[in-house]
Structures are given as structure tokens and as C-alpha cells.
């Protein structure tokens, strides 16, 4: 069986597994998994840039928040229904990715990281500055009544779970497919050796720019979905901590693997959820996880699995 067929089966298996879990899990874990899938979609978006193209951004919260506020403001003040508002959310994030991409990609390495950090900080402050509409750090609630799509109530746990699954699986399949076609291969080439890729005749800037656009749009979609499915839009989601979370999930799960982001998001969520029972020092645990990861398991969980047992893993 060719590697691409095997990886397609893997992805179908993951999605089918998640679908089955929807009906077997307890309410609590079902609710958690719905949230985790939205956050894993955010991590998938982040992985496109960090895992596959090798660009470390410390500002992805701005794309997540752009998607969230795009949807939130469209529904709250534009009176839009969820589906068009969701499109507005993704569009907002895409436009922001274009602007940031064109500017930030003129820099390399550490400078790129600092530029993304600074852009994200300005987006956070801008959200605070226009507090009259965005309600700043307090944020605002999207009323339960407005969160209906095609007659289905998104606040119903089952429907919310399936919506999150739809979002997650489309992001997973899109990125998995992308990484099989030439465009994805070239992204990996850019990560491995940008200079050599340039001299093989590939327009490196255009590829990196598209990677930022795709990464930003998927992150924005996750932000919009979070606002819609969980009913809250706030500036907290544009703060530095929400730029560090996806880095943590992708690193933990396995950068440059397709299902790494999901594994990382699940692992981190339950690590914090479990440990917050007996200590409120769970951020200490997250910090330790980051240090140990980068010291001993830079490839992350799925990265190690790929290295040791399944080299074909996408």
C-alpha cells in the first residue's frame, strides 16, 4: 500500500474514531473533546507554518483573535447569521495574514519571531483601544439564541461536537492533502534548506507567503469556531499566552506531523485538567514540559513514533 494511501487511511481512522467517541464518551469528556478539536484546529494552522515551513511565530493569537472578532462583531453589530459571520471571521484572519506575511517575511529567524510577537501585541492593544465595540478585555457574549445554524442549535453538546469535528477533520484533510502535493513538499524543502530550494528554481517567498496565509486562515477559522461554539469573544484570546499555547501543543504532539497537533492538544489539556486537581501550579508543569521537550524530545510524541516505528507517518 503506497504511503499516501496508508496516511489517508490513518486520517480517516482518526476522524472515524473521533466520531465514535462522540457517542461513547461521558458528557464531560465529550464537552472537553469538542473544545480540544477546535483548539487542535488552531494548532494545525500553527503547524503549517512552524512544523512544515520551519517559521517560528510568536504571534498566532492575532489570527485566532481576528477570526473570533470577525465573527463576533459581524454577529453582534452586523446582525449576520453564523455561517456568513464565520466566513467574515476567516476573511478577517486571511487579510491580516496577508498584511503580516508581506511585512514579516522580509525578516528571518529571531527577527521574524519578534516581529510576529510585536504585531500580535499591537492587535491586542487595538482590540483594547476600540473597547466601545470590542468590549476590550471583558469581551462580550454571543447570545445562545443567535447560535443556530440551519435550524440546529449549536449549543446542544452533540451538535457542537459534530460541528467541531467537521471543522477539525476539514483542517486535517486539507493540510494532509496539501503536504502530499508539490506545494507541501516545497514547504518542507524550504524548512530543510531555504537557500538550496531557492536555487532549485522555487519561488521561496511566494511559498512562505502562502504558508502564512493558509496558517493564518486556519487559525482564524478556529478562532471564529471557538467564538461561535462557546459563545464568548474577548481580548484575552489575543494575549501572548494564546500565542504560546499552539507552540506548546505542536511541539508536544510532534511538529511537522499531521496528527501531532491533535495529540499535543489532548495531552496538554488533560495534563492541566488532571494536575489542577491536586496543585494549582499547573503552569509550572507546562513550563517543565516545554523545557524537557526541547531538551530530549524535540520531535514530540508523534515525531518519536515516526522516527522509531512508523517512518511513513505523514
Amino acid at each position, binding site marked *: 500500500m503506497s504511503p499516501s494511501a496508508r496516511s489517508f487511511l490513518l486520517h480517516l481512522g482518526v476522524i472515524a474514531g473521533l466520531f465514535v467517541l462522540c457517542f461513547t464518551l461521558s458528557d464531560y469528556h465529550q464537552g472537553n473533546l469538542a473544545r480540544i478539536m477546535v483548539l487542535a484546529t488552531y494548532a494545525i494552522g500553527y503547524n503549517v507554518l512552524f512544523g512544515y515551513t520551519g517559521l517560528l511565530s510568536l504571534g498566532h493569537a492575532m489570527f485566532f483573535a481576528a477570526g473570533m472578532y470577525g465573527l463576533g462583531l459581524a454577529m453582534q453589530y452586523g446582525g449576520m447569521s453564523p455561517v456568513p459571520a464565520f466566513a467574515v471571521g476567516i476573511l478577517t484572519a486571511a487579510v491580516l495574514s496577508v498584511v503580516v506575511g508581506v511585512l514579516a517575511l522580509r525578516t528571518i529567524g529571531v527577527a521574524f519571531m519578534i516581529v510576529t510577537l510585536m504585531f500580535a501585541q499591537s492587535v491586542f492593544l487595538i482590540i483594547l483601544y476600540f473597547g466601545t465595540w470590542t468590549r476590550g478585555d471583558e469581551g462580550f457574549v454571543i447570545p445562545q439564541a443567535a447560535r443556530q445554524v440551519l435550524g440546529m442549535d449549536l449549543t446542544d453538546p452533540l451538535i457542537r461536537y459534530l460541528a467541531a469535528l467537521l471543522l477539525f477533520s476539514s483542517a486535517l484533510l486539507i493540510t494532509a492533502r496539501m503536504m502530499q502535493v*508539490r506545494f507541501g*513538499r*516545497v514547504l*518542507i*524543502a524550504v524548512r*530543510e*534548506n531555504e*537557500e*538550496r*530550494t*531557492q*536555487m*532549485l*528554481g*522555487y*519561488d*521561496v517567498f511566494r511559498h512562505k507567503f502562502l504558508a502564512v496565509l493558509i496558517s493564518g486562515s486556519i487559525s482564524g477559522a478556529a478562532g471564529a469556531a471557538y467564538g461561535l461554539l462557546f459563545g464568548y469573544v474577548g481580548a484575552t484570546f489575543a494575549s501572548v499566552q494564546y500565542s504560546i499555547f499552539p507552540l506548546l501543543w505542536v511541539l508536544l504532539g510532534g511538529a511537522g506531523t499531521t496528527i501531532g497537533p491533535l495529540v499535543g492538544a489532548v495531552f496538554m489539556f488533560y495534563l492541566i485538567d488532571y494536575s489542577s486537581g491536586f496543585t494549582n501550579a499547573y503552569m509550572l508543569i507546562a513550563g517543565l514540559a516545554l523545557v524537557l521537550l526541547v531538551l530530549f524530545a524535540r520531535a514530540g510524541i508523534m515525531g518519536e513514533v515516526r522516527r522509531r516505528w512508523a*517512518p511513513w507517518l505523514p
Partner: protein
Amino acid sequence: MMLLETKLLTKIYGGLTAVEAVDFSLRQGLVHALIGPNGAGKSTFVGMVSGRTPATSGEVWFDGQNISAWPAHKRMRLGMAYTFQITAIYARLSLFENIALAQGMRDQDAALDALGRVGLDERLDQLAGDLSYGHQRLLEFAMGVAQSPRLLILDEPTQGLSESEIAGFNTLIRSLAGETTILLIEHNMDVVMSLADEVTVLQQGRVLSSGTPETVSADPLVQDAYLGRETC
């Protein structure tokens, strides 16, 4: 017909003039060697031809088109291939991936064929980084050839190769003769003498002399500056 021409190509780094007003022309199908002491501006010149290094002034013409303003990747698309002085391959990717990226298509047979030409038809899924230094240089050479370029630029390809590997390299270059034009930066005089149809000598960024290997090596200027006086 001239495949490649440069007119008054110049590169100034701050105060230092690395390459000064070089006029250069390369006939289709020939092997042209570029020699000169270290720091003569060879790599800088080739960098400007390939688009890696932005030229301060002067023009680069390829196949009758003025490509002075073109970015490096567009020049490559036009039919150039470039191998680096310091080996630049995808160490953490397999041999197949390296060749596939060069060929722009994922065809096992074409890859095996390209690798075969340099005697590297080991397992396709072996990591490029695991190859010996010499084999890595051959891989880079194979990636260049795999692009079936009209102009192949080689920056000191035989550096660090063993005698037998150099002999293999020579036969390879001869096998490409006629089909691909080759611009070769080389220090190994035996390789230059045996391969080059034409030679250009650079010194302090200026063309010292140009012509067939024989005329150039007989040229007193070159001997003073570079080859050292014939003592019988």
C-alpha cells in the same frame, strides 16, 4: 551563439570592489573554467550570474534575454542549475526526496536514472545526511544534472573528492559535453586542463586573461600571477 554574456558586471561591498566591470561570454555546449587565486571574485561573479548576489552594476544576458533584474529562482527556471561551494543538500530527507525536488516530479525511475549517472543508485529511501562527504557532493551534482539545465554552474565541485572520485567526475562532465554548457570554478589544474574548452582567469575582480587552456597557461601575465614561472 552565446548562451551567457555579462557586460561590465561589477560588485562593490562597502569599499571593496570584489568584481570589477567583467565582460564574459560563454558559448553554448562548451565547458568553461573560471580560475584564479582565492579572493579573486570567482564565487561573487558566479553569484551575480545566478542571481544569489545582487550586482552593483552591469548586465547579465542569458540566451539573448537580459536577466539582470530577475530573481534567482526565475533564472533557475530559465534553464540554469547551481551547485554550492559548501554542499547544500536536504540532509534530513531521503535521496529520492532530494532528486524529486530537483526534478520537480516524483518519478521513481527518473530518480534512479539520475542517481545512476553518478553511481549513487543505493536505496532511494536512505537519508542524504548519512552519505559520505564525497557522495553528498555527487548527490548535489546529480541534483544539478537532474534539472536538465542548459547551463550548469559548478562551484569547486571536486573539492574534497578522492582521486578515483575526481576521475569519475571527469567522465561525467565529458558525458554531458555538447548537451549542457558548464561553467566550472576549479582550483585543480589537472581537472581544468583535461575538461575545459575555454578558461578565464580572474584576479582582484578583473579578467586577467581568457582563451583556450593552452594559450592561457602560456600567457606570461597568468604565469606571474598564478601558475608560477616554468622552470625547466
